[in-house]
């Protein structure tokens, strides 16, 4: 029982670590993107200021589902983050860091947010949710096919074990290199997952006035910001563990994490936003073909670099 409590405390610690890490890195990234846009950019801790400011405001609510959805969203995401291994040996619940738990438990958070947004009674929010779900339909399938390849090749779906397997193969024996087509697909899918342009159709301020977020203010928005930061932490960490060889120690983890997130941010800062059906068509064209090709040559032909 005490063991269990300690593990859960450790899990909360992981979630908190993820939040702090991602929020700081997001602040730094805002500065980097600012430099691309020929300006200074905000302070590196601006994201913290924003979140705490939002939490300090007096907000409005549109009924109990509006609040309940937010709680469910944040709760689901915190719960998901608690399973996340930080390095290949440091995690709260060893042995249970199954890939599918992340993919599906994250969906609880999404569902909570979608519910809450629709519960606000604003059609723009519902449109935003519709677009978010449609985008999810687009990027998830190619990504899952790539992960299927990895799991089929290694015989495990535990993130930490996958990390250890990659590290055991020597330097840079990462799946992003071993499965180059799959690596490309994973990067593109990750951009979709993180809601980076050109795939961020669901926030689209100019079309639907920031979509699902349209009715949020104050603490609900603050909690959704926290949720967003932890979601990004989960998704980027998934990529690091699955494709970049996990992490031997916490420093490597932070470096890899920072590199992935910054690279994606820089890429996305020179793209515009596609339309939602263009996103779906895009993902079901090249990434899916590449992912299936990769899976075939890796599983049936055994060609792995």
């Amino acid at each position, binding site marked *: 029982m005490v063991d269990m409590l300690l593990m859960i405390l450790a899990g909360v610690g992981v979630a908190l670590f993820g939040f702090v890490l991602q929020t700081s890195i997001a602040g730094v990234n805002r500065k980097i993107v600012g430099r691309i846009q*020929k300006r200074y950019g905000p302070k590196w801790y601006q994201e913290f200021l924003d979140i705490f400011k939002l939490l300090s405001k007096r907000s409005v609510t549109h009924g109990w589902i509006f609040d309940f959805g937010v709680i469910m969203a944040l709760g689901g995401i915190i719960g998901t983050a608690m399973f996340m291994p930080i390095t290949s040996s440091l995690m709260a619940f060893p042995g249970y860091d199954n890939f599918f738990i992340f993919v599906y438990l994250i969906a609880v958070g999404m569902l909570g947010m979608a519910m809450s947004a629709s519960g606000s009674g604003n059609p723009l929010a519902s449109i935003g949710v519709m677009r978010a779900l449609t985008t999810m339909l687009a990027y998830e399938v190619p990504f899952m096919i790539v992960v299927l390849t990895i799991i089929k090749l290694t015989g495990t779906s535990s993130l930490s074990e996958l990390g250890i397997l990659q590290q055991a193969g020597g330097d840079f024996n990462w799946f992003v290199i071993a499965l180059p087509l799959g690596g490309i697909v994973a990067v593109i899918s990750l951009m979709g997952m993180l809601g980076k342009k050109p795939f961020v159709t669901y926030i*689209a301020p100019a079309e639907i006035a920031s979509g699902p977020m349209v009715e949020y203010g104050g603490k609900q928005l603050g909690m959704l910001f926290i949720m967003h930061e932890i979601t990004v932490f989960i998704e980027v960490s998934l990529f690091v563990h699955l494709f970049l060889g996990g992490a031997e120690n916490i420093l490597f983890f932070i470096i890899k994490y920072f590199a992935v997130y910054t690279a994606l941010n820089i890429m996305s800062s020179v793209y515009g*936003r596609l339309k939602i059906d263009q996103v779906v068509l895009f993902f079901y064209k090249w990434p899916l073909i590449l992912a299936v090709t990769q899976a075939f040559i890796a599983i049936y032909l055994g060609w792995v670099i």
Partner: protein
Amino acid sequence: MKEMKLFLGPQHPGMSGNASVHMYVDGDIIKRSYLLPGMLHRGFEKGMERHLWVNNISLIPRVCVVEPDTNEMAFAMAVEMIAKLEVPERAHYIRMIILEFARLSIHLMSYGGLGGPTGLYTLMYHAHTDRNTILNIFEKITGHRVYHQYIVPGGVRKDLPVGIEKDMHSFLDDLESRYEEYRDLGINNLSIQARIRDTIMLPKEVVWELGVTGIGMRSAVNKPYDLRKVKPYARYDQIEFDVPVSDYSDAYARVDCKLQEVLQSISIIRQCLIKMPKGDVRVPISKGQAMRWTVPKGYAYACVESSRGEFGYFMVSDGGTHPYRVGVRGASYPQGLLGVEKYLPGTRLDDASLWIDTMGVCSPEIDR
């Protein structure tokens, strides 16, 4: 219920300016839509009747905030037409420089504005950086960043400051050198092309039906229908420049024409700087103190090629100290009101703000 109602503006990030598009949407297709204008109505036409001729000089740039100089020019031309004034040669060239800088400024702004609806904020930041340089040049010439009150009936307010040519040249060279970069970042970007290619069409028939002018028309009819060419004012007949045209009237063609006009404007300014003679820059419009200026009886309609098309002032004078009636033809009036009602329906919701943006709908000149 078959439809839901969505709004684009006035308080909406996708709407440039304070106007509202009411859209009835089924799924994501707009079924009916109306523009609700009037949020920027200030009673300009009434106000001008109540101001002296000289006071109107400070009033008219405020008609359209994004492009004050064309207002000044059209007003000045209308007064000059009624009063039959001959403007000094140098003033014509200075006016052209100012107008072309204004055109550069607004083309940069609206090209950067393409970044808003499509989410390419980097483009917006870059374009606004360059526009800010233009505003600084304006500040050096006129003392104001936005409302210059520089082109006045009878010429321009004062001569160009000494050494401003250097600033202008360095800015123009800089802009020209980064022109290709702008194209690569904006309309050559595949993610932007996916949004503006083969969509948001403005075919020829629609152009004639609505009475759209400017780039919208030129990109559809493939003829150089530019007032600077068709009925040259100032000294545009002595300057060599091309009018970019196209016959495939999608949003891409319009943005492309806009970008090509940037190059033309750069060339016009350079030619003006070379050809500009020395001399006076202003003649008084009538005798006596400025407060007692009068303009003879008459009607005039003066129009200028603004960035969005024909921008005209209809002016009636009864020979007094005030204009008797001034009417403003906003360049985006046709596509803004009738176009939104008739041709925005059928568009996707995603494209609505891009539609407004690439058609060049500017609400202050609709409302006045």
